[in-house]
């Protein structure tokens, strides 16, 4: 209730403001844009940590400065499922009914503008969600009306404020008049309350709510246009927080040109990314990057692994949430904190089910106050380190019945080295021989490389996956498989940190040293925030950012700020 009153009070303030202002041959993908992806980052010396020059300065292309060859097209971006749920929750005080149909992901991210649409397959979800949200909202709290005789004015005021918040822009008089045409019939049917519910439903079903509008001013075909201040505020807010602009940012946008100034943007970007919503957005990015959006959706064979219960899955998800929260706050939010964190957060149940073997030979075991409470626990430093050491990550990248060194390796190469592997051509496809069903997984997969046609790629892929074989499909440490010793000797090949390793801890140490990984993370953040893949012409944005992110003390939050301040982030190109 207090929160809702707070929302209403904020809206009143807004109304005041508005009134005032109005590499393997044939294996790794050969992409035209590879030069701007992760592989390019391996070359060149790291920028010295002392200068902390921004990429804008490095490139000499600040906001309004030199222009890059590639400018994103004018577009509508449908809110992703998570953005939509959050937005409805913020506006109405309760999350919408869960959608049954998940959004498609690209590179693990649900923000790709091309893949998000509304069609006959999901429109009904939106319609029903809007109707349910409207029917459940507390009208008295959301749209109080002291004067029943003047309920139409109350409804109109509510609509103006609510729509402004929902669309992230000022609503125009003619729009309000159009939407208000629905009020009177509803009021006649069910009084002021139904009138307000109807207006709310209409707003939640409007394309201005369901999409992010990035059009800029009218222009000739193939022209570059600047986004309007309100659109700029939305782009900034969604990139850094995954939601519409807050009151401060929107008020700035409505004041006109100030938000178009680079320093104002920087100050706002720094404020947003360091807010709770900013940390949530970075968490969302990292979960997408590592393919761990929701551990509750990871299944294991129930007959063989009855201990992999819904409760365990929920707890694994909590472990990841706590780990990331710690990495992004106490850990300073650096990539090292994510890849190299030395502690995790587990409870007695997770320990007993998945982690106990880690500590079998250690004299000091973790102590838990009760079965459910999560406690910060140091990893066994010999075995695990960082996010890649979490049981949830390793379970998410394993089939339901055993590990797959190939799956784990291909995921790591694609997500952290930006080096996706081309699947074998169909006509050359040569399935692995069955091998000894009682042997080790490694032994079976090693037979891949017996065939010369497979060696070109699998000699690069498999050793990376083999190095993680000490962790089973559930994420448990193991020394044997089918009563045979597990061989976890692995290696990184065709990277800038090539060399042998065994286990997640040693792998993490290598990845933390890799400039290729740091460059790839820049590319991945670009894909996440821009909502599209990089192109050849994006090099002028990505290369300075990759240079900027070389020092290991730079945080992901700092990188995100520099990215939104880069050339073209607030420009769009009209269609030819």
């Amino acid at each position, binding site marked *: 209730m207090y929160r809702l009153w707070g929302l209403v009070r904020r809206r009143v303030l807004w109304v005041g403001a508005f009134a005032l202002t109005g590499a393997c041959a044939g294996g790794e993908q050969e992409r035209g844009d590879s030069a701007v992806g992760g592989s390019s980052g391996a070359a060149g010396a790291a920028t010295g940590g002392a200068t902390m020059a921004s990429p804008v300065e490095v490139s000499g292309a600040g906001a309004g400065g030199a222009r890059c060859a590639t400018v994103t097209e004018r577009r509508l971006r449908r809110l992703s499922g998570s953005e939509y749920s959050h937005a409805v929750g913020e506006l109405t005080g309760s999350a919408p009914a869960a959608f*049954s*149909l*998940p959004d498609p992901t690209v590179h693990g991210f649900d923000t790709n503008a091309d893949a998000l649409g509304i069609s*006959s397959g999901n429109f009904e979800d939106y*319609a029903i969600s809007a*109707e349910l949200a409207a029917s459940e909202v507390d009208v008295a709290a959301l749209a109080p009306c002291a004067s029943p005789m003047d309920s139409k004015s109350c409804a109109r005021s509510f609509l103006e404020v609510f729509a402004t918040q929902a669309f992230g822009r000022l609503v125009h008089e003619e729009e309000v008049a159009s939407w208000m045409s629905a009020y009177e019939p509803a009021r006649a049917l069910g009084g002021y309350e139904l009138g307000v519910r109807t207006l709310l439903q209409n707003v939640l079903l409007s394309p201005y709510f369901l999409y992010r509008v990035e059009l800029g001013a009218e222009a000739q075909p193939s022209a570059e246009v600047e986004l309007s201040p309100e659109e700029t505020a939305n782009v900034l807010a969604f990139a850094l927080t995954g939601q519409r602009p807050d009151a401060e940012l929107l008020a700035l946008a409505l004041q006109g040109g100030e938000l178009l100034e680079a320093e104002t943007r920087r100050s706002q970007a720094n404020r947003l990314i360091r807010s709770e919503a900013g940390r949530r957005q970075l968490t969302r990015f990292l979960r997408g990057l590592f393919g761990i959006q929701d551990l509750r959706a990871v*299944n294991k064979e129930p007959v063989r692994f009855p201990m992999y219960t819904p409760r365990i899955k929920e707890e694994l998800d909590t472990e990841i949430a706590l780990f990331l929260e710690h990495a992004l706050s106490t850990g300073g939010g650096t990539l090292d904190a994510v890849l190299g964190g030395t502690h995790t957060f587990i409870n007695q149940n997770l320990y007993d089910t998945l982690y106990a073997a880690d500590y079998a030979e250690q004299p000091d075991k973790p102590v838990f106050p009760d079965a459910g409470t999560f406690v910060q626990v140091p990893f066994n430093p010999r075995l695990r380190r960082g996010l890649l050491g979490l049981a949830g990550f390793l379970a998410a990248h394993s089939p*339901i019945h055993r590990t797959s060194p190939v799956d784990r390796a291909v995921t790591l190469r694609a997500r952290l080295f930006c080096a996706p592997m081309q699947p074998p051509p*169909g006509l050359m496809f040569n399935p692995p021989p069955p091998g000894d069903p009682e042997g080790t997984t490694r032994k079976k997969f090693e037979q891949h490389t017996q065939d010369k046609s497979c060696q070109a790629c699998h000699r690069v892929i498999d050793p990376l996956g083999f190095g993680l074989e000490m962790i089973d499909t559930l994420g448990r440490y193991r020394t044997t498989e089918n009563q045979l010793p597990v061989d976890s000797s692995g290696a990184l090949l065709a990277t800038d940190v090539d060399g042998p390793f065994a286990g997640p801890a040693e792998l993490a140490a290598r990845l933390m040293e890799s400039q290729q990984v740091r460059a790839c993370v820049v590319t991945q953040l670009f894909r996440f925030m821009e909502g599209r893949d990089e192109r050849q012409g994006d090099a002028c944005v990505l290369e300075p950012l990759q240079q900027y992110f070389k020092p290991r003390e730079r945080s992901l939050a700092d990188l995100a700020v520099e990215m939104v301040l880069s050339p073209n982030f607030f420009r769009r190109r009209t*269609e030819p």
Partner: protein
Amino acid sequence: MSGNAFGRRDLLRAAGLTLLVPAFLRDAFAVPENAGARLVIFMQPNGTHQRAFWPDPTTGRSPILDPLLTDAALARKLLLIRGVVNTTVGFGNEHDRGFNSLWTGVLPSGTPDDAFGGGPSIDQVLRAALKPAVLFPTLNAGVLAADVAPKNGHRRSFSYVDSMQQIPTQTDPYRLYAALFRQVESDPQRATQELALRRSALDASARDLTTLSARLGPAQRRKLDAHTTALREYEARLSQSLEASGACSKPAAIAPGIDLVLEDNVPQLTQLMLDLVVVSLSCNLTRLVTFPFGMCGNQWFYRWLNIARDNHSDIAHLDTEEGLDPVITGYMVQISRFWSEQVARFCSALDAIPEETGSVLDNSLVIWANENGNGSHSLSNLPIACIGRAAGRQTLTGVLDRGTQTHHQLNTSVLRWMGVHADGYGDQPNSGGLTGT
């Protein structure tokens, strides 16, 4: 819900044990003259065992197809198409291309790891050409019970409105049931008023869409066109629900509590979803259906068939043309036969529902295809079974075997069977249809 497919009589019984067909059903059953054929496409993942699929030339039997071949009524309406090759190259592997390209006829789009369809799939092409005046012009439903981490989202559907614009697959029978058989307000006056409110929301949204659309270029406008179309279809369904005014017959509600992500529930989910598709087709609620039997390249264990092995890595990939490992080949056949049984049961249900001319099956084209030709990712000699007479436009029976034919030719023939003139399909506008048709 019973395990049997719904028949017309079941629907009448559910309407209140009366022979007086209520308005909704009367309208629903009243298939307009020259409505053409209905289309259903089933996609099975992970290939088949070729030698067990195609009927023995001497006996006419097939370990996989026998559920269709041994039912005389179905066998008379069965056409097998041999030699079809999916010639697509590009993003993704052969599993991906089976789903993203077989029915679009164009190169995939997206990224190497996330390969989507590069254009509209045939259900959407037909929808644009035929403009079916039904409540669900197209329906994309299926069974995708999760078995691995949901990192392959692009593999959940083979129906596309446009490049990368995938139509999500409805996998929830409860939601599908609710969408097909909407609850309506029992008080007619109240119902009228509520409909007016809902329509006002939809009209307001449509106005905003129009305003926005005017500011967009062609590509972005197409995106909003799909949105607008979906909105108008939804609006039409609301109106129809009202006109039914509570008299709309609907099957008994599905018993609650089915876990939609548990693989062991796949047989039950398949039955429920197919039953709902039978009702949708026979009541003329929809005319174009796409239905995946699992995500492409899925890793189901088929415990309900007492297999308990990953059907992708530990069965399909180990199967050989010669059947060198009889256990593996046996599993491969068993799995395809399971889907054959589902298709046969579905087609029999359609065939049991009479229409003015023939049965619903006679006026339908049911295609059961596979993303791969075998367990080793082949895109050649895809197993294609067509059941039904497509309202008299498809009259062939037996095996059509004219050597290699492309998936463009297959799609072109499907368009023609559905009553749409076509010289080619997708990126091969002059491919022609299947030789021999």
